[in-house]
């Protein structure tokens, strides 16, 4: 951010924006949980002895694919199954123990050719992992749009989707219904949401929008049938779609939660890999914030400040500062004192060189692990907070000192 330029409100609101989006995502998860429970109860209610299934040759089946044609009938795009993650090994294991409990759902797409509406994981495990020839299947004949909706609703209700896939598949479904490009669908969603906000979410406003915004009725009815509000769609789904590809990939292979992705987007790209590796990406957001803090600190190159300020000494025992440059700026002296106390400077000798304090802190930081080793361990988190606050305070102190030195030199 350039000095002397007023920061935009959009920029100032970033923290508020992320906090609200994260909180909405959490609520959505709870809603999905409730829906899932309802579906489970329904399934228990109707399941009793479904016998309307048949054996189908696995090689006659293909994954879902829906082609979008333009006015002249030319295929412009093909949508596949919106979901991108399939646990084939896990499914194969459960199939070989319990056998195939639920039939997959198919529709007929040509002479002896069938397309999967539901059950891609089962189909792939049976065909590719277990190498069996036949699969239990049920039929549900439907149009392309219904097919996409079927998969979408089915998966959404069974919570196989994450928020990103849900957003993407709804946009795809709208594209196929409205015959629009992705960009057009996205701006339509924004337009409807803006109108709703400025006109109030009242009945008349919605009718006005139906009449004046093309396609709005289809959008709003579809969203309501999926139990997702336009506000959630625009504010907690579309932002995920505009994430950098790297983060999206990690969300899709379940190594990064959508809320953590939103937090990580604002952190330097150089730390992304480390923030996602292992179980890191799925840690609660509080830990993710700390991890980002830690990684950013570890990465920062403090060596120039270390070298430039080697003369500063600290009476660690009494947390007093005796800087070589005289009394100095009171605020930064206070910063330094605080950091020494925070860092538990008892372990340091009297009149320690400030550089040694900083090095000691960095060492403490490196040995700290935020992943499962300190799961639910508030002491570990506290330590991290302490170390990172102190390092921040110390390096701020150094920066101030650096500036001071420079000013002095310039005056001379």
């Amino acid at each position, binding site marked *: 951010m350039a000095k002397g330029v*007023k*920061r*935009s*409100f*959009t920029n*100032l*609101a970033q*923290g*508020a*924006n*992320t*906090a*609200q*989006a*994260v*909180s*909405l995502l*959490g609520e959505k998860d709870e809603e999905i949980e409730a829906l899932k429970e309802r579906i489970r109860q329904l399934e228990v209610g109707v399941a009793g002895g479904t016998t309307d299934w048949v054996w189908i040759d696995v090689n006659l089946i293909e994954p879902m694919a829906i082609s979008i044609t333009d006015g002249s009938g030319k295929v412009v795009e093909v949508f596949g199954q919106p979901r991108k993650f399939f646990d084939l090994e896990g499914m194969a294991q459960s199939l070989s123990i319990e056998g195939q409990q639920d039939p997959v759902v198919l529709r007929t797409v040509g002479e002896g050719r069938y397309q999967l509406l539901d059950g891609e994981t089962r189909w792939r495990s049976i065909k590719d992992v277990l190498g069996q020839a036949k699969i239990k299947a049920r039929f549900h004949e439907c149009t392309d749009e219904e097919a996409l909706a079927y998969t979408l609703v089915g998966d959404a209700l069974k919570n196989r989707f994450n928020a990103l896939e849900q957003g993407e598949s709804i946009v795809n479904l709208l594209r196929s219904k409205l015959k629009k490009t992705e960009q057009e669908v996205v701006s339509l969603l924004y337009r409807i949401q*803006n109108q709703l*906000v*400025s006109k109030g979410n009242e009945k008349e406003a919605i009718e006005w929008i139906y009449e004046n915004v093309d396609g709005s009725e289809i959008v709003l009815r579809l969203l309501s049938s999926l139990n997702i509000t336009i*506000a959630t769609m625009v*504010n*907690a789904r579309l932002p995920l779609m505009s994430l950098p590809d790297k983060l999206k990939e990690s969300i899709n292979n379940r190594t990064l939660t959508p809320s953590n992705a939103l937090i990580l987007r604002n952190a330097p790209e150089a730390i992304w890999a480390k923030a996602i590796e292992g179980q890191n990406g799925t840690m609660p957001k509080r830990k993710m914030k700390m991890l980002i803090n830690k990684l950013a600190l570890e990465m920062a190159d403090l060596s120039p400040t270390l070298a430039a300020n080697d003369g500063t000494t600290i009476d660690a025992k009494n947390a007093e500062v005796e800087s070589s440059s005289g009394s100095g700026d009171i605020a930064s002296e206070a910063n330094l004192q605080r950091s020494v106390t925070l860092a538990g400077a008892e372990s340091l000798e009297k009149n320690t060189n400030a550089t040694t304090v900083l090095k000691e802190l960095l060492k403490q930081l490196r040995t700290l692990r935020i992943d499962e080793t300190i799961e639910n361990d508030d002491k570990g988190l506290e330590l991290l907070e302490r170390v990172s606050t102190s390092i921040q305070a110390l390096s701020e102190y150094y920066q101030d000192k650096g500036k001071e030195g420079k000013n002095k030199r310039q005056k001379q």
Partner: protein
Amino acid sequence: MTQVRLAIMSCAGGTGKSTVATNLAYSLACLGQSVCLIDCDSNGTAALFTGLENPSSIGETLVAALKPGFKGPWPLKPVWRDYGIEKVDAVLGGHFLNEGSRQIQKEPRAAYLLADAIEDAPLPHDVVIFDCPGTIEQFHQMVLPACNQILIVLKPDTKDINAGFGLIQWIAEFSRDLRLKPKPKILGVQPNAFDKDAAMHRECLADGPGIEDSLPVVLRSLPEPIHVFPAIQQTRYLTNAGAVGLPLRLYRSDRTTWKIAGLFEALAKAVLEADHG
């Protein structure tokens, strides 16, 4: 109807929270509502602005209600009865809150004490207004689980607005940390002490086609969009009215105060029409 419990918050002192709280209480009373104004600030402005004597003991303040197991009665003080206002009461704050704060710190349910008090000893009023302090401290935190609506009061300048965004972030994060269900809704942002001659004020509040970076535009684009109410302008009548313990309309009722009184009345209606979960 569910009781409206409105918290008036800001992230800075002197933005006009107590001014809005007292004038709003008056406007609500004029609409036939009974109102309880709870002063959660240790500066005790609410007593001043309602013309009440300062409390003489801790038992006359909000602290009395924050004892675990509190079953009532609330230390209610009648407000503006001499002026024909029948249904406004106040629970006082002031410096006793500092002492209370030290006791409360040790309570395991510290953040929920106010919500507990309201649940266990319900106030009979239609509307409860919490006049919050200007920083996020213990009493401020306690209001979040106790309220169902929040009004943010700020001056339309960059500093206040920046602090306001910080407050909005805190509300989202703290509501989640405390697992509030339902969480309180932000009724809107009330700009106050607007100076129409200040370019900065006008820029902050600009809205309409072509405007991309102003308070109303940015608040509207948040995941949970926030409404901005029409600004209350800077006027010495409000300062003077507060100083003698009266709402603007009782202090002076003529054409000069008509416009601002109208804003408070519209705000009061918005409070009553909002959905309180």
